[in-house]
């Protein structure tokens, strides 16, 4: 399988795990020192608040909370979201790591008003045998600087 095909297969699998709220499956894709961020705007400015700014222990906490069954904003969400991941490009490549850019469109139909979430993901992926692990994932929402509804799922 080409590098491009392997990366695409990995991102499609991640998308399915997120859509199907398979939080444990999603967590297993991560490096143990992974960093997951959803900045406001371009991000990267120290001392500025983010939407999500998780080190690995906090990714684990996020997953534990979503799995707990007692988060109200998760109630009724099963089957209510699907995303399309596209425009997948390997942006850079170094030894066993590559940086991958992709775009997504996500529909969420949990509440009366169906939501559309659109953004770009940049993954730093590390080769792990035939598979990859996520070393870093940064999600740039096109509306990150606007008023957002609840983001109580994995994006």
């Amino acid at each position, binding site marked *: 399988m080409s590098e491009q095909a392997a990366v695409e297969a990995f991102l499609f699998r991640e998308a399915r795990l997120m859509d199907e709220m398979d939080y444990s499956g999603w967590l297993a894709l991560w490096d143990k020192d992974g960093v997951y961020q959803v900045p406001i705007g371009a991000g990267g400015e120290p001392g500025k*608040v983010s939407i999500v700014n998780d080190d690995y222990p906090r990714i684990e906490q996020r997953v534990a909370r979503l799995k707990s069954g007692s988060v109200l904003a998760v109630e009724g969400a099963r089957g209510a979201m699907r995303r399309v991941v596209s425009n997948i490009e390997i942006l850079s490549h170094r030894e066993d790591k590559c940086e991958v850019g992709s775009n997504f469109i996500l529909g969420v139909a949990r509440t009366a008003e169906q939501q559309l979430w659109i953004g770009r993901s940049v993954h730093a992926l590390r080769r792990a045998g035939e598979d990859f692990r996520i070393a870093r994932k940064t999600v740039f929402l096109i509306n990150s600087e*606007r008023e957002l*509804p*609840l983001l109580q799922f994995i994006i």
Partner: protein
Amino acid sequence: MTDAPLAQDAVVRGSVYRDPGLFQRELERIWYRVWVYVGHESEVPKPGDFVRRQIGLQPVIMVRGNDDKVRVFYNRCRHRANLVCFAERGVAKSIVCPYHGWTYANTGELVAPTFDDGYDYDLEKERFGLTPLPRQDSYRGLVFASVAAEGQSLAEHLGGVTEFLDLFMDLSPEGEIAVDAGEQKVVYRGNWKYMPENSMEGDYHGPFIHGVAFDLYAKRTGFDVTALATDEVPDVIRSLPGGHMVEDYRGAPMDPPKRQPSAARLEYIAKLKARHGEAKAAAMLSTMAPLLYVFPNLMYVITHLRVVQPVSVDRTHSYYFPVMLKGAPAEINEARLSDHEFMFGSAGFVSPDDVEIMERNQVGMQARGDDRLYIGRGMHRERSMPDGGRSGMTRDETHLRGFWRHYVSLMEDGE
């Protein structure tokens, strides 16, 4: 002025969350009348810095002029009423209307209309400056303005709530906060009044909707916030004249965290002691700073200033501005920001539980039957306080009753 309850004070009509006519009335009777929080001076540190804000539905800008003074203007060109500032924030030597190029100094004066040889009368420039809000004032950097030309002074409006504003601002070893860490913006489908009500009664609803998050927080930091509400303590819940609400934890010390304080924490503690003396610093550090609500739109909640912004009767924006403590070690502020991201914003672990509840509340409110909400907890035991307000125990609804008494007084008087 005192704030004593009446028998019907334990009841709120559902229509106040639901009726578009009452929403319009709130704009006129509340939002375009009382002092409304606009922003903090540290958001516009340099001359020319500006931020866009709203008072009710009216767009305004807060700008620091070249004379270093912070002013609040209507965000409306004096020519044909276009927005003079489109950007949410920025820096401007002069403010130029994009429509026909009318140009204003960052102190508000009209510098130049355009093609002014075409005006067939002597256009008096001094009459065409940006319109300032008729009343503007500040308290320790918190800038307030009022659409109404006449009314109470800001000091009268704030009244006893300054004691509680001081308590969180004094967490800074320099006695100054910095609102310079950006902001999270949230929208929800519900009335604006759920936000202050819900934000100030976490000890009652906390065990029901925040259990998982509080457990995770205790594991992460060693602080068990649920301990604040284990025993009900008198005078935690406070209503103040003017509709303000407070959760005052000074009588409810927390268990000290089990782990050793870091070097940064020890440095921070030493700085607070140097500034405030041993006893006051120890008291401040023994519990959480008060949660407070300044009527109608400002809150301080644990890590941040929160601004509630009505959009329509059933749609509201909420803004979360992390508060940094000037003079505190960098690690202390980094931890505050990290705690904030843990708890708040669209993807946080605590406030989304509240927002979900507010959206469900708006739906539940469509069901009539008996259209009264009941806020009677602690009615029989609430006490008058020297500041003219009332107090109750940790999970009482005393402060909600105070909020609604003030709301009703504004909505009904002058008919």
